[in-house]
């Protein structure tokens, strides 16, 4: 169990660093989602199941949806239908 916790913590650090270094915003979003999932597992190991439920539902589920919708609204999803809005608008 100790080893599992250490693995999760290392994964957390890797996720945090790569989320800030990723060039594509969508990739950052997905890495952030993985970060939330790992965080919820760590909450469970720290005997805080309340927080684990909330983190899994909010951090991994709803937050990702909201961020995706934001990226869609500001036309920042590269290579999709919503990206072409830029040249039409300006």
């Amino acid at each position, binding site marked *: 169990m100790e080893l599992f916790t250490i693995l999760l913590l290392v994964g957390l650090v890797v996720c945090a660093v790569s989320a800030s270094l990723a060039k594509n915003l969508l990739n950052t979003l997905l890495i952030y989602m993985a970060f939330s999932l790992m965080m919820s597992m760590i909450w469970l190991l*720290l005997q805080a*199941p*309340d927080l*684990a*439920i*909330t983190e899994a*539902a*909010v951090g991994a*589920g*709803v937050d990702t*949806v*909201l961020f995706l*919708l*934001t990226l*869609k*609204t500001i036309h920042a999803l590269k290579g999709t*239908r919503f990206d072409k*809005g830029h040249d*039409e*608008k300006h």
Partner: protein
Amino acid sequence: MTKNIKEQWRRFAAWVNGVENDEPVVTPEERRAARPRLPGIMNRVLSEKNELRLYHAFSVVMCLVFTGTLLLTVLFLPTFGGAGNPTENEVMQRYVEKGIEEVGATNLISNIILVYRGFDTFGESCVLFLAATCVMILLRKDEKNTTEYDLAERAEDAEIESEENTTVLRSVVRLLMPVIMLFGVYVLLNGHLSPGGGFSGGAILGAGLILFENAFGDKVRRFMSEHVYHFIKVAALYFYGFTMIYVFFTGANGLHSIIGTGIPGMIFSAGVIMPINVAVGLEVACTMYAFYAFFSKGEL
């Protein structure tokens, strides 16, 4: 200096009044030339490219210093759950030993966050309410602020939506929706007996509503109109607020409730915790759904 401030104020007022393109057109080259350089001797020593490099190096160093400081602080933290920690004092002892007896919930965390520290959680609920209101102010779309571009995009969305066949999604959602909602209500109502409570249960309910909206858009919009949303949100917050006022007037520790503590472990026990959990859960669920609706469509 005064002229500069006046100029800035004029531009701010123009911006408030909705005047666009007030700034004179500046080409990127002009802007680069007008950019303030480093003062004194540094200006002559460094070329522009090296100056940029200096900024980059400086930001990396700052980042490293901050990370190092935080990690150094972590080294001096007491061990997790250790016996001699500063948090191990009479407050925690009281919560653990007398919590079930005084409040009546077997989940000690909900004892603490909803009764002993009820005001903090009330503040959190208010923050959520404020966030939902701000999102509404910023993202709401009606006739006045909908441009032709938005309309075209919405028409394109509707066209794509009409093309696709949602039979698969609908049948699966029909199967899963009761289970998800039941789980949410279970977490909500058992907040004083098992892990969970208002925030978690509300988040599950809200996520379920979002899924339901994706499959059966019209049916959700029929019962989740703006009136219903406002009513639930404000009623839940008022209920919570009045409970907190009552708690405040009966000694500010939440230990005297009309309902009574009941038998610990039963579903109807622990005084005001279950009603507050239901109120918080409803508010969180509504807020989640409203966030989704405003971000995706600009209306409920």
